[in-house]
């Protein structure tokens, strides 16, 4: 059964993910027998409307990158549904998937590792036109130059190689390639975390300009909570493969409901030496997603955990106003036995 209240707009979302699971087998021994599974994504539902940004936050190993890749089918989900504009993607074969790939693209964290070092900028940005047989020759060149211009890059970049570019320029190339075929959805996985502080703001502005001009939808995956708040319409917080809280950005940051979200937000260092704050320090560390604890995945680190948390998995409770939290403390009165 799909979740009662996945984050996102209720009607006609561009992207609708329901109860998605991506488990990786752990193989051991000479015969490679499967000894268990890493439950990287473990029953996630979400929606993204047109022109919207869903921010996805969580710590390393929480499954946020795997979720992003599963949505684009860069990794195969184990079960569940991913619909782009109403079309179910998980059932499609490679040939049927191809026209849909144009409509959803990815921007990666490492703008160096994701660009082929043997290709020129012109070839990299022009590649989508070639693969999808959209434009060739002079037409392709013209469109690449126009994209570079939109990225704030001059025509002299056309013949450069990736190693000749700065980190910020490389990320602009990665974005140009992603938007070349006018996609509707961009999955951006930590697109600014490898960049210098003074360059991050430039890329954030570029992403937000492109969204305004083209009505793009973003699944913006990041661990920088400040940037996520700035860019996102809604934010979903992931922990051990599950979404534990989701809400409109302002509501999530102003009144986080889930103890994990509260701890996460309180841990962010604030660039104001005069502001003294009380910090919720979590004990312990993220458990392994191959052996998640029983009950609520957060209970071993939760300052409020009680008996029920160790036995039952809390569902994502709808708190109204698009706010949902998977914590027994947030259980609406009416539901309580």
């Amino acid at each position, binding site marked *: 059964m799909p979740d009662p209240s996945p984050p996102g707009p209720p009607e006609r979302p561009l992207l609708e993910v329901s109860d998605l699971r991506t488990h990786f087998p752990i193989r051991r021994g000479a015969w490679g027998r499967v000894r268990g599974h890493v439950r990287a994504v473990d029953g996630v539902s979400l929606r993204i409307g047109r022109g919207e940004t869903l921010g996805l936050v969580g710590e390393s190993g929480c499954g946020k990158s795997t979720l992003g890749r599963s949505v684009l089918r860069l990794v195969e989900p184990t079960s569940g549904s991913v619909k782009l504009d109403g079309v179910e993607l998980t059932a499609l074969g490679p040939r049927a998937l191809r026209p849909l790939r144009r409509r959803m693209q990815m921007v990666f964290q490492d703008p160096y590792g994701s660009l082929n070092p043997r290709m020129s900028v012109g070839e990299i940005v022009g590649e989508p036109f070639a693969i999808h047989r959209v434009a060739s020759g002079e037409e392709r060149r013209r469109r690449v130059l126009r994209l570079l211009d939109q990225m704030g890059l001059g025509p002299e970049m056309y013949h450069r190689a990736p190693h000749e570019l700065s980190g910020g320029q490389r990320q602009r190339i990665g974005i140009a390639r992603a938007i070349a075929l006018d996609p509707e959805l961009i999955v951006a996985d930590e697109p600014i975390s490898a960049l210098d502080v*003074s360059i991050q703001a430039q890329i954030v502005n570029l992403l937000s300009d492109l969204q305004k001009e083209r009505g793009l939808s973003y699944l913006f995956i990041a661990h920088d909570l400040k940037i996520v708040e*700035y860019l996102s319409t809604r934010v979903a917080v992931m922990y051990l493969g599950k979404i534990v809280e989701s809400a409109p950005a302002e509501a999530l940051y102003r009144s986080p409901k889930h103890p994990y979200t509260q701890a*996460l937000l309180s*841990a962010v260092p604030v*660039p104001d030496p005069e502001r003294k704050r009380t910090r919720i*320090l979590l004990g312990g*560390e993220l458990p392994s997603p191959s052996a998640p604890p029983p009950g609520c995945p957060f209970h071993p680190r939760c300052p409020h955990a009680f008996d029920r948390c160790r036995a039952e998995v809390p569902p994502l409770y709808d708190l109204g106003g698009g706010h949902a939290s998977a914590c027994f403390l947030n259980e609406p009165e009416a539901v309580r036995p």
Partner: protein
Amino acid sequence: MAEAATAGALLEIRDLQVELHTARGVLRAVDGVSLQVPRGKTLGIVGESGCGKSLTALSVLRLLRAPPARVAHGQVLFEGRDLLSLPEPELRRIRGNRIAMVFQEPMSSLNPVYTAGAQIAEAVRAHRPVDRAAARARAVEMLRLVGIPAPEERADSYPHQLSGGMRQRVMIAMALCCDPELLIADEPTTALDVTVQAQILELLRGLQRSRQMSMALITHDLGVVAETCDEVAVMYAGRVVERAPVGDIFRRPAHPYTAGLLRSIPRLEGERERLWAIPGAVPALGAWPSGCRFRDRCDRATEICARVDPPLEPRREGQLAACHHPVEAPASA
């Protein structure tokens, strides 16, 4: 020149120059850096990639990889003695003992074939005349101090059996096992998640207070600076461009680069305006412009900035900036 304010300094770097010998020739990656770490306080060294902050830190304990790096000029005074000209055996008595260092990547800084406990014990025995059992006991004590649960068992773990946060705690335990007077921490929490970062920073702050330790914290995160440091040095393109107490850096930055970094942090109160962004890119090593190295990204630059390299000079009480057109302090403070 500005040598008056050295009274309370435990460590003082004077006019440090570090050269990199590369295929493209000799590049001066650190170019005349002067810094002080006050006794019992934390100095934050802030800057972006390639600004020379890590090379500066490595120079202190003569840990630069040579070649390609070489200290070409300058002094590193620790209690008045120049570490750069100290004979190696004498330096070895200071390194890891009175001055310790923590690096960003704990995995590559730990030896994979020894247990965490053995590595800390070895560090203890390098500087203290204690037997194996006592060194081992000290290792367990340090692991407990840095908040590792079940330290007796964890002491027998190999680095690969520990998480990133645990490994960084082990590194800190090792750095602190000889009660150093100065800890140099180079991006100690950059590779860690925010909740673990909060734990490690809390730990460092607590240890510093209880032990009256001095600290040099190298970071690019202004939030970490605001919450951890007393004094701040901002570096850009091999130079220190601003030095001030932490409150002044955030309240009334004098250098346009410092001001620009602060302005580019998203303000979440009120309207979501477009972010302020410093234009251009961080210049590559050796491709620094003439005069002021920040001038081609600076909205205050004039003709003099291209001609004359601005020296680091006092601008306001306790605040130094290397700029011809420093940012005015706000009228009301």
